[in-house]
């Protein structure tokens, strides 16, 4: 494992850092479909995966690629796919299969301006809700991490793979074009210093093993036996019993739905990761995520230079949403400005919900193409701070 990691200091794009993060996390199967702005990850993995004995395929479409990675994971390989905008819409079909069967996979979304094809080469942040709720049928929890830099793209990709194994579920890396295409320093440490969670294997014989722990829905670190290991597993698109048999019973449906939700929300303490700056004495907070956190942070610095008591808050694990942490921010400050690259106000809506009316929540949106500029955000801070 460790020999697959190439320690050193690099000057690369976020997309390439994602590829190296995947390899360091033990990803040995990648299936993709070309799409801007993340083809660089596919290209990097096409070179790198064979070197480490892994498989990299370009499939006929996005549907095939997500189904193939789910299947490869069922076959025992850590697996990943990547896409953007219209490709993510297609991935969501296969995502449901992965969620329902509790298959550990990583899906990367390098967001671009939408809807539909939008502007393929330019940034947007419109997939915040669609990755969370887009797979039809509901009844599931979802984990998504969002990097702001090339270094985080590497680090959080590894974290995504670990969480996928711990929670037995698909995990999203919710990046954006700014992160994907920003070329900046990346430090890859020695492989041995990286925390990597391997596939957890059953310790009981097949006849005693319960494939889907419907009666202990909160359990995590639960084993996933692969095909060909004698466990006779059953994976399907249907509501399943603990053995994986299709069921139409309301009781089983209820138990399965609870399992898919409770394994996430009963373990929220393991899923809180946020960045706070200048929050100790803050009277006003700026919230942003992903690549757009960078101009937001720069604007907060500008405000501090002007003597304004402005703090900065960034969810790193964006799903499950850090309700409690946002609530604490709302208790502390008079108003919160949410900066994001969509006009409809997605992150803003979550912040407003979690704030429970304790602070005013304002949305600074943009349709994308350009990220926010620090001055733009600063002007909005100044306007709201005065009022």
């Amino acid at each position, binding site marked *: 494992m460790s*020999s697959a990691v190439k320690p050193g200091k690099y000057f690369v794009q976020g997309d390439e850092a994602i590829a190296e993060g995947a390899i360091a996390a033990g990803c040995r*199967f990648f*299936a993709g479909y070309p799409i801007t702005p993340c083809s660089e990850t596919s290209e990097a993995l096409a070179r790198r995966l*064979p*070197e*480490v*004995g892994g*498989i990299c*395929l370009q*499939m*006929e*479409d996005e*549907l*095939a*690629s997500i*189904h*193939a*990675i*789910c*299947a*490869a*994971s*069922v*076959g*025992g*390989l850590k*697996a990943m796919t990547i896409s953007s905008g219209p490709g993510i819409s297609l991935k969501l*079909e*296969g995502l*449901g*299969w992965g969620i329902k069967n509790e298959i550990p996979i990583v899906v990367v979304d390098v967001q671009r301006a939408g809807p539909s094809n939008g502007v393929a080469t330019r940034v947007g942040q419109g997939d915040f809700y669609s990755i969370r709720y887009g797979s039809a049928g509901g009844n599931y929890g979802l984990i998504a991490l969002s990097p702001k830099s090339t270094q985080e793209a590497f680090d959080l990709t590894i974290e995504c793979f670990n969480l996928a194994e711990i929670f037995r579920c698909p995990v999203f890396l919710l990046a954006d074009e700014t992160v994907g295409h920003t070329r900046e320093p990346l430090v890859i440490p020695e492989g041995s210093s990286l925390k990597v969670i391997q596939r957890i294997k059953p310790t009981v014989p097949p006849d005693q093993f319960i494939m889907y722990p419907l009666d202990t829905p909160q359990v995590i670190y639960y084993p996933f036996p*692969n*095909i*060909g290991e*004698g*466990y*006779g*597993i*059953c*994976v*399907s*698109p*249907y509501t399943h019993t603990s*053995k*994986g*048999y*299709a069921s139409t019973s309301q009781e089983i449906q209820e138990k399965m739905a609870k399992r898919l939700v409770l394994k996430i929300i009963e373990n929220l303490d393991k899923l809180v990761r946020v960045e706070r700056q200048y929050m100790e004495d803050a009277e006003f907070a700026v919230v942003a995520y992903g690549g757009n956190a960078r101009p937001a942070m720069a604007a907060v610095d500008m405000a501090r230079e002007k003597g304004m008591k402005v703090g900065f808050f960034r969810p790193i694990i964006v799903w499950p949403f850090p309700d409690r942490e946002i609530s604490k921010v709302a208790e502390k400050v008079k108003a919160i400005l949410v900066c994001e690259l969509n006009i409809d106000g997605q992150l803003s809506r979550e912040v407003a919900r979690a704030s429970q009316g304790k602070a005013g929540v304002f949305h600074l949106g943009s349709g994308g193409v350009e990220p926010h500029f620090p001055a733009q955000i600063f002007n909005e801070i100044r306007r709201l701070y005065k009022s």
Partner: protein
Amino acid sequence: MSAVGETLNVIHPLVSKYLRKERMPHMACPGCGIGQVVHATLLAIDELGLTTQDTVWVQGVGCSSRITYSTWLGDNVDAHHGRIFAVATGLKMARPDLNFILFTGDGDCGAIGGNHFIHACRRNLDVTAILFNNGIYGMTGGQVAPTSPIGAVTTTTPYGNIEDPFDMCQLAVAAGASYVARWKSTDFKPLINSIKKGIQTKGLAFIEVLVQCPTNFGRYVLKTNQPQEVLKWIKEHVVTLKEVKNLRPEERQGKYLIGEFIHRTDRSGIVERYQELLKKYKKD
């Protein structure tokens, strides 16, 4: 004479050996042809000495899949509708040492999953795919399929089907599958031999079986609920690859060709080619 209940308790030796007893009886309608094909598949598996440890059953969605899913005593992987070949690609690439037997339907493989099917043939993925062609959407209640005959009255073609049916075997040959054959469900011996050949062939083996669906094809297209009537219709609409040479073009209209379309051993597939690539580029 034994009572009916006792008769039902007799377990077929192939079921004991390869299937999950708790999943029996399967959910096929009375008179359905899928059971015959599963029987032929189990005999082929048995004759080749495959086991529940080295063989995985893979399904899609539809009668083909819903009836066979989670019946295999080994591993069962059932894909979303149409995604069976994409799933099989991930499975086989991850575990090239295992045998994968795919059960798909004419809707699953010929409509919603058509593109994945074409590309699996092009990659010549080393799996054995059995297509149950009943000429209609059975599980959803008798809607027109891409394999329904022209003129067929179904629940979604009340005025008759105006589209020509899809020949999935010709498609598989053109796209590059190593082995392609079509049989009727009643061609029991040729079918067993064909499945055996398919499993032994490197690359994608595609075996289409015309199965009788009295419940929907019979009811809507042929206006009968009798399996033997549907079987009779199938028999009247097939010609062997030998016979077809003597037919005039107008006599070929609406006929299903039966037999082996191709059996090539000269075309390697993605599984072997990837292994070769790894030998060359893998660094220790």
